[in-house]
């Protein structure tokens, strides 16, 4: 009897591992920044380059930090989610135009709508590296103390927004 049970158990264990492996996305690398302070930066604003923005300005507020670019096709698919969210006035969305030309970024926002309270432009991608950005779009939820509480790699879908981001935002706002 043991002769059959043991190989079967081994098979089941391997099958379970492989089944879980099938569902994993190798492009989703867990960020070590979650739970840590959002890296400081000072960048010019997209629309008014003479003005600057830095995350320290946001102390005391819960906010979303969305990294996007006009050359990023996945950004187009997630953009309506943010446009809709901005209408509800639940949480301010700050954008970072990543490795993009200023004109292209502005044109893209004119075309697709601008849900952002403010957009900064990271033309050289240096701040992106500091935030561990490796594929846009990426979205961070940052709490009142300036700690990154969540990072979404890839497009934010309505499901992710409703099930993960918004509950977290409400919880953090209540704190």
């Amino acid at each position: 009897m043991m002769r059959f049970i043991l190989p079967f158990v081994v098979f089941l264990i391997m099958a379970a591992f492989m089944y879980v492996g099938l569902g994993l996305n190798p492009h989703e690398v867990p960020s070590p920044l979650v739970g840590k302070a959002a890296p400081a930066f000072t960048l010019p604003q997209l629309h008014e380059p003479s003005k600057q923005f830095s995350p320290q300005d946001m102390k005391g507020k819960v906010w979303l930090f969305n990294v996007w670019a006009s050359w990023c096709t996945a950004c187009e698919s997630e953009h309506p989610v943010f446009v809709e969210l901005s209408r509800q006035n639940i949480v301010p969305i700050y954008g970072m135009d990543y490795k993009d030309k200023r004109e292209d970024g502005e044109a893209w926002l004119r075309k697709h709508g601008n849900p952002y309270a403010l957009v900064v432009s990271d033309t050289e991608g240096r701040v992106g590296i500091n935030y561990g950005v490796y594929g846009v779009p990426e979205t961070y939820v940052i709490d009142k103390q300036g700690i990154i509480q969540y990072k979404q790699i890839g497009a934010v879908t309505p499901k992710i927004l409703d099930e993960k981001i918004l509950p977290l935002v409400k919880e953090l706002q209540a704190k």
Partner: protein
Amino acid sequence: MRYLLILLVCLLPVFSYAGQATDMAADPVLEKRMIGLAENLRCLVCQNESLASSHADLAEDLRREVREQMQKGLSDQEIIDYLVSRYGDFVLYDPPVKKATLVLWYGPFALLLAGAGMLIYQLRKRKSQVPEAELSAEDAQRAASLLEETPESSNQSKDKQA
């Protein structure tokens, strides 16, 4: 023939342009050090390429970052620590031993031990299962006579066989 031609046209490397490595540092020593370090780091975009060999935009930016940090006088370890703090252990081709990687590091040895254990167990079981053949008086006598044969004669018989 026409299909063959179409196939051949399809094979033309029209779209094989993948961007050029544009970074050229003024300082060849530093460039060498940077490449040496980047060879042990993984590109996050094309995950099977090293940071040194990848043509991805991000890899280029990260090489620039590494180069700049080297110019600032940071040690290799400090630069690696910085990248790990931003991108996680994933950037390392040589993941450190920690709780999450215990299975990765010691799993194969555990499997090896389990296999060896199974083998020993099976061999012992088989040994106990094979009954010791009983020697009849006749067999015992034959065995004794075989053993008594002189080494020379056994050599001879070997020669004959050969």
